[in-house]
């Protein structure tokens, strides 16, 4: 019972990156528990997914051919059935939007302690999970009791597994009880609008630090003076100050400009996911401990309302 079962994820015909990260996390953990690493892939083209998932360190891939896209009823039932069959010590799932749509139900049904959004995993006679609190201001370690546990892992915290493995690939039959109480009817791309920020070379991006909508013209002046493209972190879009197609981050756009100038952005992990691929990252923030400085190449610890007008002057 010292095995690890990790559930993979795909969307619109493609495995998502976290599927390969969960292999790395799962393999490391299985080495510590002394067990095998089992993967589950549910729905879609399971055959080709299983081939791609057969990377170094994977002992078995279990495929459940049911449906094309994510459906939480199918995932919940399939993972529960696999768990009952394999009886693993730890169940790993992605801490993605879809992960959070089935993992808590699985944990509840199986009566497993659940720890979400893990950034580290250790096993030594028991499971210890590292996770963050208070918007990444502190890190904590949590010991989880019980013989079996469920954990969701944060994306991009573990490297993607590579190499080709020699896993056993097998179809797993589950009787899925149809439930039409929740039905996925389609997908919609967010945004529209006139600008595609993912194409921009120089992005000036703003966050909570601009405080109020009335301060937006100041930033727009900078954007005009430098011929940049304006983008933002989530709160600015949530407030309705900029349209959704300007949002950079996990739930917004991924951008890869030459320069990303982050003004008044603290650098929450969800935002960083969308902009860490920029060649050069420059941050302006009053808080010297803001996580944005951890990934910035250049920084100004200072008040944007003093710095930005000076910067505009430089280019006018």
């Amino acid at each position, binding site marked *: 019972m010292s095995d690890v079962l990790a559930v993979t994820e795909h969307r619109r015909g493609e495995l998502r990156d976290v599927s390969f990260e969960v292999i790395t996390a799962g393999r490391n953990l299985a080495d510590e528990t002394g067990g095998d690493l089992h993967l589950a892939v549910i729905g879609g083209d399971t055959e080709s997914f299983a081939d791609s998932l057969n990377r170094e360190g994977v002992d078995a891939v279990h495929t459940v051919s049911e449906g094309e896209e994510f459906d*939480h009823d199918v995932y919940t039932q399939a993972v529960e059935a696999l768990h009952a069959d394999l009886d693993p010590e730890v169940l790993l799932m992605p801490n*993605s939007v879809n992960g*959070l*749509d*089935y*993992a*808590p*139900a699985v*944990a*509840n049904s199986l009566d497993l*302690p*659940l720890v*979400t*959004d893990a950034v580290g995993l250790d096993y030594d006679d028991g499971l*210890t999970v590292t996770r*963050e*609190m*208070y918007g990444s*201001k*502190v*890190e*904590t370690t*949590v*010991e*989880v*009791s019980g013989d079996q546990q469920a954990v969701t892992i944060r994306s991009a915290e573990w490297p993607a597994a590579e190499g080709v493995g020699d896993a056993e690939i097998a179809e797993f039959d589950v009787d899925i009880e149809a439930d039409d109480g*929740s*039905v*996925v*009817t389609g*997908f*919609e791309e*967010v*945004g529209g609008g006139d600008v595609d920020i993912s194409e921009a070379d*120089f992005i000036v991006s703003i966050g909570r630090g601009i405080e109020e909508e009335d301060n937006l013209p100041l930033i727009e002046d900078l954007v005009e003076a*430098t*011929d*940049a493209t304006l983008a933002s972190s*989530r709160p600015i879009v949530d407030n*309705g100050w900029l349209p959704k197609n300007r949002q950079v981050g996990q*739930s*917004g*756009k*991924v951008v890869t400009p*030459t*320069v990303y100038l982050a003004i008044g952005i603290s650098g929450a992990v969800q935002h960083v996911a969308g902009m860490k691929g920029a060649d*050069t990252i420059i941050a302006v923030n009053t*808080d010297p*401990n803001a996580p944005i*400085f951890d990934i*910035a*190449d*250049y920084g*100004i*610890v*200072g008040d944007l309302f003093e*710095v930005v*007008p*000076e910067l505009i002057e*430089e280019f006018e």
Partner: protein
Amino acid sequence: MKVLVTVKEVAEVADDFEIAGTEVDERYLEYDLNEWDDYAVEEAVQLKENGPAEEVVTVTVGPERSEETIRMALAKGADRAVRVWDDALEEPDILDVETKTTLLEAVVEEEDPDLVLTGVQSGDDNFGATGVSLADELGFQWGAVVNALDYDEAENVAHVHRELEGGVEELTDIDLPAVLTIQTGINEPRYASLRGIRQAQSKEIAPKSLDDLGLDAGAVESDLDLTAMYEPESESDAEIFEGDASETAGKLAEVLREKGVAE
């Protein structure tokens, strides 16, 4: 239709703070309504203003101090509140999902709502799991990370958008009774009006102990033990520009010119 909204009072940590043991020292904490729950409250109040909901009730697991936050939700238009607390809840450093599920399930069974709205996550411990766990326990339908909600009264169906990663939304029809976890940006939470704040003073906040809910201390034994808390090590190798605003802006401008993105 009755809507139950989970409302959490969360601690926010100051920019500079100290850790004492496995807690942030109380001096550096400020308490506020959980950001995600603010949107959930607004969504519920709009359902009432637009017709389908007759009553909006909030439920909070929290000590007496949290009544200030609960009053904020009442001032924004919730009709009444339930507050669950017990000395047994003082003990664990961190409440696990199972405990929160058990407590909320007991309240749902008393209140019998058609729709439960929760925030996607809380700003402090950030589990993001209670809503779906609760739905599973209740045998309700559910949807996680909802950023658009259109309730069809005739069909008793919630047409929702779930905000996936990368600018894609999933469209889902969910039969009631259901639990929906609400994402920020779904609406524009209102500020409490002075009139609302005055009215909130006379609204009911019903305290419930474990005993009141038919539970015992065993129901709140946590599987999780918070063993350490520390500030993450800074991995910064950023070159920080020194000087006043004019000097730092000058150096920044130099970099922009060097990189060829601005002239």
